[in-house]
């Protein structure tokens, strides 16, 4: 049973078809990259998979359950784009502890087990010692790791990361790649929206390339991956011209 599966998925935003006939699946334990140029629909695709954007066509299944019936949100850990969120006050611990809310009941205090899992998740992303630091003070790479810790402390089985490398220097990218590699070794399934795969090459099993809201046939990735070296090559660069294609 695939962890994520879409069949003939179509999303229309406004009147613009943003995703067309997307069929894909991510198996348990896999780390899959979702690649594509700006506007290719990759962020919309993960948002549709998570039910944050309604789809007009086709089906989405999470852990074998149709999205509309899916209630097991503890199994999903969403790591949104760092730039899109602001926590002016909250400390790292408070941000990470949000991840427990999928399991915590309303009107219940945080249990010792909750606290323990939050501490473990913070340690797993090497932020121990920063628990009481406001999230807003962290560097970009540290913020990204804190958001991953938040997804981890809910004991998710699937991590969905939206552009985790955006705005990060090379060293932070390497550290993040190490963290993700460790999580993969622990059996976590990962779906990662990316601009380029270079920094995560060692982690990824497979890439899905989107262009203009459609999945490109497999095997086209290598063109993209070595895009810079092969620009003068006879292959047409597949990701170019996306905007013209609209």
């Amino acid at each position, binding site marked *: 049973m695939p962890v994520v599966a879409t069949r003939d998925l179509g999303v229309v935003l406004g009147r613009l078809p943003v995703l067309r006939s997307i069929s894909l699946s991510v198996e348990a334990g896999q780390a899959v990259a979702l690649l594509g140029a700006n506007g290719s629909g990759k962020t919309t695709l993960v948002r549709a998979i998570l039910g944050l954007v309604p789809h007009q066509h086709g089906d989405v299944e999470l852990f074998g359950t149709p999205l509309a019936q899916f209630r097991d949100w503890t199994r999903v850990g969403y790591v949104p784009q760092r730039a899109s969120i602001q926590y002016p006050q909250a400390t790292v611990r408070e941000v990470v502890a*949000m991840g427990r809310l999928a399991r915590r009941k309303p009107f219940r205090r945080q249990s010792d087990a909750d606290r323990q899992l939050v501490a473990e998740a913070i340690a797993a992303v090497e932020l121990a010692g920063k628990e009481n630091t406001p999230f807003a003070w962290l560097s970009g790479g540290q913020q990204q790791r804190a958001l991953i810790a938040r997804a981890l402390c809910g004991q998710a089985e699937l991590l969905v990361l939206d552009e985790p490398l955006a705005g990060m220097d090379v060293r932070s990218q390497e550290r993040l790649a190490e963290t993700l590699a460790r999580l993969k070794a622990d059996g976590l399934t990962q779906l990662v929206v990316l601009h380029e795969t270079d920094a995560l090459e060692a982690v990824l099993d497979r890439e899905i390339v989107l262009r203009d809201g459609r999945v490109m046939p497999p095997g086209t990735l290598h063109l993209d991956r070595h895009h810079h070296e092969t620009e003068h090559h006879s292959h047409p660069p597949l990701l170019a011209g996306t905007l013209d294609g609209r």
Partner: protein
Amino acid sequence: MDFLTLAFMQRALLAALVAGLVSPTIGGFIVQRRLSLLGDGLGHVAIAGVGLALATGLTPLPVAVAVAIAGAVAIELLRSSGRASADVAMAVLFYGGLATGVLLAGLVGQGAGNLSSYLFGSLLTISTPELALIAVLGGLILVLALGLAPQLFAVCSDEDYARTLGLPVRLYNMLIVVLAAVTITVSMRTVGLLMVSALMIVPVATANNLARGFSRALGLAMGLGVASAAAGVVGSYYLNAPPGSLIVVVAIAIFVVTLPVAGRLRRARKLPKTVEDADPTPLPHQPEAAHEHVHGPGCGHPALVHGDHLDYVHDGHRHAAHEGHYDEH
């Protein structure tokens, strides 16, 4: 403290303490959600309720609660519709509430005089049944807001993420505006409908400047709200001033007085910026020519964290100390 033997002063103090405690609690979530002016708008809507009560001879507080809740539901439905026209529709609703209230009160000859005790507060005339209702509503708000604090915080700070936690986001969004509406009517007699928003927002703004962490700031804001309310009521007795406005002035005075402290805290916390190298290979050695100035903390040149050392920005260059001289970095 002889005034505490006066029954009306006791009621005034109790009502003010409830308002001072409850208002910043909801205010903390409203500010996190970037809806600081929501309270002001809801206050305008509640005026319609007061006007309606004055016109029909009903008790103002329960009618104001009902109308404010209805207004809150309308606002939330408009907001979540995401339409561009929602912003204008909300403005129409706010001023519609204000105008309706003034009109209804005026039509039955109650005029602005009676209405003004709800616009600017009238702590000293609170009756015992009114105080009882204020206390019950205040208690209800506290139980819901504090019992659901983690959930409400998650929804207020990042709706999408809250949805992927499986939280009933729409329900919680609605709950926040409804709680805000009830808070406004609870504080209505204390500071008046035109100033309720101040008691919701100002202590939160002060606490956010001083405390680290959402829950600590929320706790501090509640303390500051209670302190402002108590100081306002007691002060009004000695100054023979209206308590509602004094409470707001005290809250704002605390905000202003603590600004320098907040500034110092912020500066102390501010870490030097970090220079991020795109290329991890070491820089070629490029020593700086004769350099009289010695860089150090507080030398006047901004410091940057660069790997394992500090660079100082000097005339557009970055100087890094190296064996008795400075390198260009």
